């Protein structure tokens, strides 16, 4: 072990002295599903072709397992590049000194200009700690045939939204499908309702533990949520289903709408008529803020080959590379100079996000993991038993006080 380390250290220092010689770049990736795997595979192959002196080695991990595994490598023997998430998730490691600042990569590649929308989520104390590779929108995906059948329009306001739900329900269609078995889908609803009710600043304060969960404004968010629950607009027995299982009613016409991320769209069958609208406005005095989770690449501070890792980061930041990658991922490029794919969901998503007053990452990426776990359980319980709200909020408040002590 020590011998290996010693050899590696010697190898790195030799490399630095003699300039660029064949180096190995180790990348740990959480993109193991078929489509993302192929898109990243292509990017890496192109990178290797453009940099013949670098030999890339990729280790792939399953998306969930990766989240706990990364904590082990970062402290023990990290790769040169890790995939991770912007915002609070990144900050957690930055605060512990586990990620390398890459401010020079941002400076040398004109990134401050091209990555304006994601810059804040990559910055801690005026230093940048990674490069955003891709992001995607959240919003309401719906069955356009059903909307047409009942003469419905895309709702812009809360009142219109309630009306749409009411009409659908009256016609025996489940207005909103959702599967809360694995909790996070309920967090999507919480995020949007809270962003629309109280705005981004308040939302982020809540995520950072600066506002109590028992605050009157949080209660207002839940009151709006309750309107939908009491109306019976959500899919029955949603706690039994995963998010994928909850697609079934949407796809077979039993349900009309689904609040979800853009990764839902590949499930729509060829030739079907689905469309997208922005989550409706609740309070006109509150701006339109969106959830736009950003996936990023970083260099661990204990990485062995930081020089080549920075070259990789700069490569990922290039506009044409981002265009190509995100076509494959069916997502949006954070680089403003890059082009997004031209399917109707991405086009609408890009337009929506570029006009957004600000973006959040997602509940479980924005707040502390321990808080997120309890929070999401609370949301699920609330959706089934709205009468328990007081008890749920008191419990969350207790968790907040402990976590953000």
């Amino acid at each position, binding site marked *: *072990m020590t011998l290996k380390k010693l050899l590696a250290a010697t190898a790195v220092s030799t490399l630095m002295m003699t300039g660029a010689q064949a180096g190995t770049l180790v990348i740990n990736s959480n993109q*193991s599903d078929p489509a993302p795997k192929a898109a990243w595979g292509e990017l890496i192959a192109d990178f290797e072709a453009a940099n013949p002196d670098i030999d890339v080695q990729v*280790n*792939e*991990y*399953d998306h969930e*397992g*990766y989240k*706990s*595994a990364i904590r*082990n490598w970062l402290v*023990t*023997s990290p790769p040169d590049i890790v995939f991770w998430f912007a915002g609070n998730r990144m900050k957690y490691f930055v605060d512990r000194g586990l990620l390398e600042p890459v401010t020079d990569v941002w400076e040398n590649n004109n990134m401050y200009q091209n990555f304006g929308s994601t810059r804040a989520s990559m910055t801690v104390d005026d230093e940048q700690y990674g490069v955003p590779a891709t992001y995607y929108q959240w919003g309401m995906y719906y069955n356009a045939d059903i909307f047409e059948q009942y003469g419905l329009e895309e709702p812009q306001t809360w009142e219109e939204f309630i009306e749409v739900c009411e009409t659908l329900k009256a016609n025996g269609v489940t207005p909103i499908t959702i599967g809360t078995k694995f909790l996070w889908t309920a967090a999507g609803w919480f995020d949007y309702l809270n962003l629309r009710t109280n705005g981004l600043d308040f939302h982020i304060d809540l995520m950072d533990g600066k506002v109590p969960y028992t605050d009157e404004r949080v209660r207002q968010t839940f009151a709006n949520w309750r309107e939908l629950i009491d109306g019976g607009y959500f899919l029955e027995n949603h706690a039994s289903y*995963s998010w*994928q*299982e909850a*697609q*079934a009613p949407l796809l077979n016409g039993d349900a009309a709408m689904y609040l979800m991320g853009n990764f839902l769209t590949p499930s729509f069958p060829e030739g079907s008529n689905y469309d997208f609208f922005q989550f409706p406005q609740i309070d006109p005095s509150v701006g339109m803020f969106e959830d736009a989770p950003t996936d990023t690449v970083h260099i661990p501070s204990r990485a062995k080959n930081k020089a080549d890792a920075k070259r990789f980061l700069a490569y990922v930041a290039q506009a044409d590379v981002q265009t190509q990658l995100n076509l494959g991922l069916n997502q949006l490029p954070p680089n403003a100079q890059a082009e997004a794919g031209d399917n109707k969901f991405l086009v609408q998503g890009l337009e929506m996000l570029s006009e957004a007053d600000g973006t959040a990452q997602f509940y479980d990426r924005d707040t502390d993991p321990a808080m997120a776990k309890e929070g999401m359980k609370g949301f699920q319980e609330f959706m089934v038993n709205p009468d328990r709200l007081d008890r749920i909020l008191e419990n969350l408040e207790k968790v907040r006080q402990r976590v953000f002590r």
Partner: protein
Amino acid sequence: MFPTPIQQTSKFTQISYRVALPATIILWLLPLAAVLMTSVRSIADINAGNYWGLPEEWMLVENYTAVFANTNMARYLLNSVIITVPVMIASVALATLAGFSLAKYRFRGRIALFATFIGGNFVPFQILMIPVRDLTIQLGLYDSVWALIIFHTAFQTGFCTLFMRNFIIDLPDELLESCRLEGASEWKIFTRIIVPLVRPALAALAVLIFTFVWNDYFWALVLVQSDEVRPVTAGISALRGQWLASWQLISAGSIVAALPPVILFFAMQKHFIAGLTLGATKG
């Protein structure tokens, strides 16, 4: 002897017994039968609610091929073998040595050591998670087959030692004494006398350990996480997320994963039961 042999009862009881027997077994295995049948159906069949009729179209080949072609199932199975077999050999070997020592020597701390093995064997192993995971990471073994092999060997050694000690203690002392008188070394006594005599116990233990380790899920979640080393139990539950509501594939995958221990069980039934029931008649 008890209850009264059915042959000595009334005609009516005899007939009802013979009817009840297959009925109960069918009821008992109903969940499995359903899974087996589901694994050869098409998804259309399942959606149409056809559970008990013959499949509209037989998808036996398609479904089982899909399990292997579209997923890492073959890799998971191989990983399970790579992990299970060394554990089986190592823990039985270590336990035979230890069991011999505890059974046939009188030395200080003998009872205390034996009690330690038993106690350790009975702990809810989840409580070991945090330190064992930490140790594994520090040894640089996290996410490698060695992480599982070493831990399982250590943990199963407790059970095996208890088992072996109880088996060896029943072997006649005179045999060992006569060998000692002839000047055989202790090691020789172990290899020449003990090992051949405990052979039936070795087989019983090996089958049991195979099943225990093959079916482990907890440690497969805690100590490894990439597809290259993940055993079949962790693999199948990961696949469940991927296959969504494709119950026909989930069923086929489950059957494939269950097959090795089931085959082993039917092949080695006598040893298996002998191993499990040790102590059910005395103690």
